[in-house]
C-alpha cells in the first residue's frame, strides 16, 4: 500500500513539474503552434514534391508525362531535398519544445485522447524516420535492408496521414494559442533563450544547413556547399556521375566497335545504326540538366539525335501516339530501362546525346550514346543506350 502511495505521490510530483514546464514560453502552446505550422508546411512540401518524383518514375499507365517545363524536376527535387534537410533542426526544436507533454499522467484521459496519442507515435517515428532515411540516402549510406525509395515513399503516406490526425486534434488549441491576445513575453530569465531567441536559433540552424548543402543544385552557392555530396562542376567533362561504366559493367560492350543502336517494336521493320550512321542524322543541341533524386543537379550542353527524328526514320507517322522504351547495355541494376511518354518521345529536345559540351561523351556519361530529355529524373536519363522499343 505504501509503495502504491509513494508511486502516486511521485506521479503527482512529476505532473506538477510538467505543468510548470509548460508555462515556460519555450514549452507553451504558442511555441508548439508556431513550430507546428512551420513543420506542417515543410512536410507538405516534401510530401507533394516526393509524390511528383514518385509518379515521374512510376507513372500510371494513363498519364502522358509532360516534357515541360524542362527544368521542373530539377526545381521540385531540389526543393524536396533542401526542405527535408532544413526540417531537421525544425523537428528537433519542436520535439524538444513539447517534450514535457510526453510524460502526461495518466497517459490518456479519454478514448479520443488515446487515439490521438497512438497516432502521435506514428507521427514522431515517421517524421524522424523520413528525415533520417532521406538524409542517409543523400549521403549514400544504407544501413537498412529495405529498398530506400519504396520505404521512404510508403512511410511518407503514413507520416502525412498521422500529421492530419494531429492537425485535427490540435486545431482548436493551435488557433486559440495564436489568436489569444498575449501580453508580450516577459524578458527571458538570465541564461535562458526567450521565445524569439529560440525561434531565431532554429531558423539560423535551418538556414545554415541549407547554405552548407544547397550549392549541389544552386550553382552560384556551390562554394558554400561544404557538406554537399556533389559539386555540380566536378566530374568527367565538368559534370557529376551517379554510376560509372565500370560499376554498371558495360565498359567492354560500350567500347565494342560492333555496337549498334536498334529501333524495334511496333514499326514496319527494325532499323539499325552504327555510330557513324547516327552522327550522319540531323544533330540538335540542347541545354538540359541532369537532376538526381538525391538533390544535386547540373546543366550540360548536349548534342545528339532527336528521338522523334529516329522515329520518323523508322517510318512512324508524325501524328501517331507512341511510347518508347529505352534499353541500356546495362543488364544488372534497376535502371537499365526507362520509358518515354508520348509527349516526351515527341519533344524535339529529347535526345540520344553523342556529345557533351562539344566533345564526344565520356564513357561514364553514357558513351556511345545516352538519353537526355527535359523534365526527367536523372535515373531515367538512361546511359549506354542500345535499343529503342516503340509501342
Amino acid at each position, binding site marked *: 500500500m505504501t509503495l502504491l502511495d509513494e508511486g502516486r505521490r511521485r506521479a503527482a510530483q512529476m505532473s506538477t513539474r510538467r505543468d510548470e514546464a509548460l508555462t515556460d514560453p519555450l514549452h507553451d502552446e504558442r511555441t508548439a503552434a508556431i513550430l507546428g505550422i512551420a513543420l506542417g508546411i515543410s512536410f507538405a512540401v516534401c510530401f507533394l514534391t516526393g509524390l511528383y518524383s514518385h509518379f515521374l518514375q512510376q507513372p500510371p499507365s494513363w498519364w502522358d508525362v509532360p516534357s515541360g517545363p524542362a527544368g521542373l524536376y530539377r526545381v521540385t527535387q531540389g526543393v524536396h531535398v533542401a526542405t527535408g534537410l532544413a526540417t531537421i533542426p525544425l523537428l528537433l526544436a519542436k520535439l524538444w519544445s513539447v517534450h514535457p*507533454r510526453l510524460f502526461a499522467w495518466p497517459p490518456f484521459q479519454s478514448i479520443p485522447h488515446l487515439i490521438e496519442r497512438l497516432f502521435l507515435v506514428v507521427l514522431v*517515428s515517421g517524421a524522424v524516420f523520413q528525415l533520417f532515411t532521406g538524409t542517409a540516402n543523400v549521403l549514400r549510406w544504407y544501413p537498412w535492408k529495405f529498398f530506400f525509395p519504396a520505404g521512404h515513399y510508403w512511410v511518407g503516406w503514413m507520416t502525412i496521414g498521422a500529421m492530419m490526425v*494531429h492537425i*485535427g486534434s490540435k*486545431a482548436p488549441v493551435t488557433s486559440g494559442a495564436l489568436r489569444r491576445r498575449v501580453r508580450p513575453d516577459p524578458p527571458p530569465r538570465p541564461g535562458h533563450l526567450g521565445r524569439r531567441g529560440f525561434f531565431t536559433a532554429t531558423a539560423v540552424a535551418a538556414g545554415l*544547413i541549407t547554405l552548407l548543402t544547397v550549392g549541389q543544385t544552386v550553382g552560384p552557392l556551390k562554394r558554400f556547399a*561544404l557538406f554537399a555530396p556533389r559539386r555540380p562542376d566536378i566530374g568527367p567533362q565538368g559534370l557529376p556521375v551517379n554510376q*560509372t561504366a565500370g560499376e554498371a559493367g558495360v565498359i567492354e560492350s560500350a567500347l565494342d566497335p560492333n555496337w549498334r543502336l536498334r529501333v524495334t517494336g511496333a514499326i514496319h521493320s527494325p532499323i539499325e545504326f552504327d555510330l557513324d550512321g547516327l552522327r550522319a542524322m540531323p544533330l540538335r543541341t540542347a541545354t538540359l540538366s541532369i537532376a538526381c533524386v538525391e538533390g544535386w543537379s547540373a546543366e550540360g550542353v548536349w548534342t545528339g539525335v532527336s528521338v522523334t527524328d529516329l522515329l520518323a526514320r523508322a517510318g512512324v507517322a508524325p501524328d501517331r501516339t507512341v511510347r518508347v522504351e529505352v534499353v541500356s547495355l546495362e543488364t544488372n541494376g534497376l535502371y537499365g530501362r526507362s520509358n518515354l511518354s508520348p509527349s516526351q518521345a515527341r519533344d524535339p529536345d529529347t535526345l540520344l546525346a553523342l556529345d557533351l559540351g562539344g566533345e564526344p561523351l565520356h564513357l561514364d556519361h553514357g558513351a556511345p550514346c545516352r538519353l537526355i530529355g527535359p523534365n526527367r529524373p536523372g535515373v531515367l536519363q538512361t546511359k549506354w543506350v542500345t535499343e529503342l522499343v516503340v509501342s
Partner: protein
Amino acid sequence: MTTASNRQRSHRDEGPAGAAFWVGLTAGAALVLVGVVGLFRNSTATVPANLFVWLFGAGVVHDAVLLPLLLLAGWVTGRVLPVWARTPIRLGLAWTALVTVVFWPAIRGWGVRAANPSLFPLDYVQHLVLTLTVTWGLVLVALVVQYLRHLREASRG
C-alpha cells in the same frame, strides 16, 4: 480553486474533441492505411519486418537517447557554467552536435566509392574543422561580449 491551479489545469491535456478531430482522424487514418497497405503489398522492396524496426526505432532513439542527452547537456551546462556564459555555449554545443551528426556519413566517407571520384569530391573532415572553428570563434566573441556586459551590470548594481 486557486489561480495557480487553474493555470496549471489548462495545461493538462484533456484530449481532442470536436468536428476537426473526427475529420482529421478519418482523412488521416485513411492515408496511414494507404501507407501500411502499400508497405505490405510491396514487401519484397519494403521488407516490413526490417522497416518497422527502423521506423519505430527512430522514434525510440529520439525519445530515449537524443532527448535525454539534450536534457542532460542542458542540466550540466546549467550546473557548471556561470549564467552569462550559458546561452552562447549551449547554442555552440547544439550546432556542433547537429552539424556533426547530420553530416557524419559524409565526414567518415561511408558512401565513398573508389570508382566514382565525382561522388564526395570534397574534404569533409577539413570542412567540419573549418565550420567548428568558425562556430567556436563566434561563441568566444559572444562570451567576451556577455562577460563585459556582466561586469558592467555587476559594477552598477
